[in-house]
């Protein structure tokens, strides 16, 4: 039986796949030795053709999601319900795509500095983004698994892009081994849940809504067996790993430090946003309570916020510091996942958007300052930046203040929305922990600002010059949106709430 197929709903995904294939094909025909005379030019892609195709694909996918969906308000399904399009998924798709566009712009700068070929690099980014979009449309355990793998496997490769550097290889191997292990754990959980649904309802199905319905019914009747609970826990562990929640965060600092800086930036924002959305879709609502996962997630969220923020205090490498900071921000998003009301889901969405732009601005500064043969990534590298290049220093400062949650920047409204939803849903103590850990975070977010503005640059340093336009655009866009979302959060908050209501209504 061939299911009904409506490819019209899948246009963004298909556009990204097509762009990935075109990049791979175009790369084969690009002149190899061009650009040698220009020391900052790209060795293999002097005219930026690969970059252009990638950006066009991403922008087209984003434009279709923004303008091409028509007037349909409810959820639309195709492929026998394996693929769903709703406002909630679309909203997160927009956030993920915006993060990816910034990540690609930064990748251009990074690839120029490393003088690396671009084709496979951009193709992998496009395929991983495709995986993210499929994941955001997944309503079936099989699709969650396939989407998660399509998102992760390109990332394992990208993490090890600098094969001749030990750090990068370490990052790739660690991510691959631990990531595969986490996926296997999640599959075991899905298998147990599948078995439970088959036994309990007599119908073998991998549909998530059927699983949720059966779990809720069995829980209400008091006959939920232990292996179904185990299945729920294992399924959630796989997703918490991607979110790098404590205690599944061990890989995060090493992978984030060793990966290409632009990939670290992109991974830390987009993967996290997508995973939070999937957690909300699967575990949001009463099923969390039925599976006895609420307490577990509470503890995980509290530990994640606490450990992420305290471990960040002792780092000397900015990338590592931002890695632990991203662990902590994952914890704040988990608070929103716990408070899975429409306000809570909307808060997670807004938080993900604010974090995307705030964090991207910090990484953009690192890439802006780097040059061929030297990557800026320690606090010492930032010494005196505030006096030598005040504007770039200001961008870094704004980014840190936004991550800290200082009004009137985007990060403040994200945290405010999350904690307000949490208090409404009765998670008062978790909110207290969140506020206390935010206070801890001030210490390490202030450190770059102190280093930049209150210490002198070492003798012999000069202004960094000659950056690619892509890095400039990413830098300016990220910081403008961070400030803009902070000054005018209303429209975006409303948009987030509308999108979240689509999810909650469908429950």
């Amino acid at each position, binding site marked *: *039986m*061939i*299911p009904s*197929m409506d490819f019209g709903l899948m246009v963004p995904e298909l556009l990204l796949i097509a762009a*990935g294939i075109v990049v*791979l094909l175009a790369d084969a025909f690009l002149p190899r030795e061009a650009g040698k005379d220009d*020391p*900052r030019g790209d060795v293999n892609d002097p005219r930026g053709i690969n970059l252009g195709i990638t950006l066009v694909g991403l922008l087209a996918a984003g434009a279709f999601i923004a303008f091409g969906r028509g007037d349909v308000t409810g959820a639309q399904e195709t492929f026998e319900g*394996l693929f769903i399009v709703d406002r909630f998924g679309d909203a997160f798709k927009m956030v993920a795509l915006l993060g990816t566009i910034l990540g690609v712009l930064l990748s251009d700068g990074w690839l120029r500095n*490393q*003088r*690396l*070929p671009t084709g*496979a690099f951009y*193709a*992998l980014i496009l*395929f991983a983004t*495709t995986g993210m979009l499929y994941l955001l449309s997944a309503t*079936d355990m099989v699709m969650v*698994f*396939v989407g998660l793998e*399509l998102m992760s*496997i*390109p990332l*394992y*490769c990208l993490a*090890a*892009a600098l094969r*001749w550097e030990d750090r990068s290889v370490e990052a790739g191997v660690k991510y691959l081994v631990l990531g595969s292990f986490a996926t296997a754990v999640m599959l075991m959980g899905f298998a147990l849940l599948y*078995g*439970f649904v088959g*036994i*309990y*309802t*007599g*119908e*073998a199905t991998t549909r998530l809504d059927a699983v949720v319905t059966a779990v809720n*019914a069995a829980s209400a009747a008091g*006959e939920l*067996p*232990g*292996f*179904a609970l*185990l299945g729920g826990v294992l399924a959630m562990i796989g997703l918490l790993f991607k979110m790098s929640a404590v205690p599944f965060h061990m890989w995060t600092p090493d992978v984030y430090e060793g990966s290409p800086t632009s990939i670290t930036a992109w991974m830390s924002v987009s993967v996290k946003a997508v995973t939070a959305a999937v957690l909300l879709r699967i575990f949001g609502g009463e099923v969390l309570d039925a599976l006895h996962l609420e307490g577990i997630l509470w503890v995980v969220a509290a530990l994640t916020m606490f450990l992420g923020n305290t471990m960040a205090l002792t780092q000397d490498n900015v990338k590592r510091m931002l890695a632990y900071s991203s662990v902590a921000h994952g914890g704040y998003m988990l608070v929103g996942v716990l408070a899975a009301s429409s306000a809570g889901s909307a808060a997670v969405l807004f938080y993900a958007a604010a974090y995307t732009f705030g964090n991207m601005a910090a990484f953009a500064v690192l890439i802006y*300052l780097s*040059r*061929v*043969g*030297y990557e*800026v990534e320690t606090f*010492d*590298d930032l010494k005196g*930046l505030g006096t030598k290049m005040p504007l770039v220093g200001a961008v870094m400062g704004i980014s840190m203040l936004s991550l800290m949650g200082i009004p009137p920047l985007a990060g403040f409204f994200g945290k405010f929305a999350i904690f307000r939803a949490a208090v409404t849903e009765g998670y008062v103590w978790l909110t207290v922990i969140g506020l206390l850990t935010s206070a801890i975070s001030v210490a390490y977010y202030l450190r770059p600002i102190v280093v930049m503005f209150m210490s002198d*640059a*070492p003798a012999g*340093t000069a*202004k*960094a*010059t*000659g950056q690619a336009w892509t890095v400039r655009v990413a830098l300016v866009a990220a910081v403008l949106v961070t400030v803009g979302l902070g000054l005018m959060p209303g429209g975006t908050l409303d948009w987030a709430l509308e999108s979240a209501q689509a999810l909650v209504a469908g429950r």
Partner: protein
Amino acid sequence: MDPSVLALYACCLLALAGGAGVIVLRNPVHAAISLLFTMLALGGAYAMMQAHLLAALQVLIYAGAIVILIVYVIMLLDQGREEVPHPFYPLGVAIGVPLAVLLVVISAPAFMGASAGPEPLITGPEDCTNCESAAVMVKKPDGSLVEASGCEDYVDTDNDGFTDCNDPDCHDNQLCYGTVRAVGGSLLGPFVLPFEVASVLLLAGIAGSILLTGRRPKELEDVIAGPAIAPAPGPQVVSGEGRGQA
């Protein structure tokens, strides 16, 4: 006891023994051979549970390709000759054994049919012996027993004297899950989307291998040596490792 059930248990025991061997054996080659036994035994177990296609794939891919790959890696790394040290981790045992027991205790009810929850009751009419499976009675949430689905309600379309998975209206039956026809029907039927997305995944794997086999660009060193770049914040240091490889 049914001989196929005995064979199933034998396969499972062999798989467990092979798994234990992978951990206990000190010579990497021996461990790999032990893994081969586990893979083969799992294939046998699948076959005994009517999952014929899965059994064939298991032998072909895991026992055939993957174990051979592992042996190749051991050979290339020249690890086969010496025995790896085998430290005993008391902490690992102290955590691992209780966890294993807990796993068995929690998941056993699912497989024993003795769960506090619903109980599948296997009842089969005598005339359905060649059916891939008999009807399964399942308790619904409201307590009523319904027949999940068996083959005996279907029409013997191909007139071979039995209603079984070869009959078109029966092969959609979920209990005919293991046949090539059923798996193929699922892959190109309800699960065609993940099947196609998996092909993108393979493409991504190819792109990844292109990325990971790339060489360090030669031009990088010329550029660093030249004066074209204005100094930026931070000392002018280049990571020396691997420079000769390009």
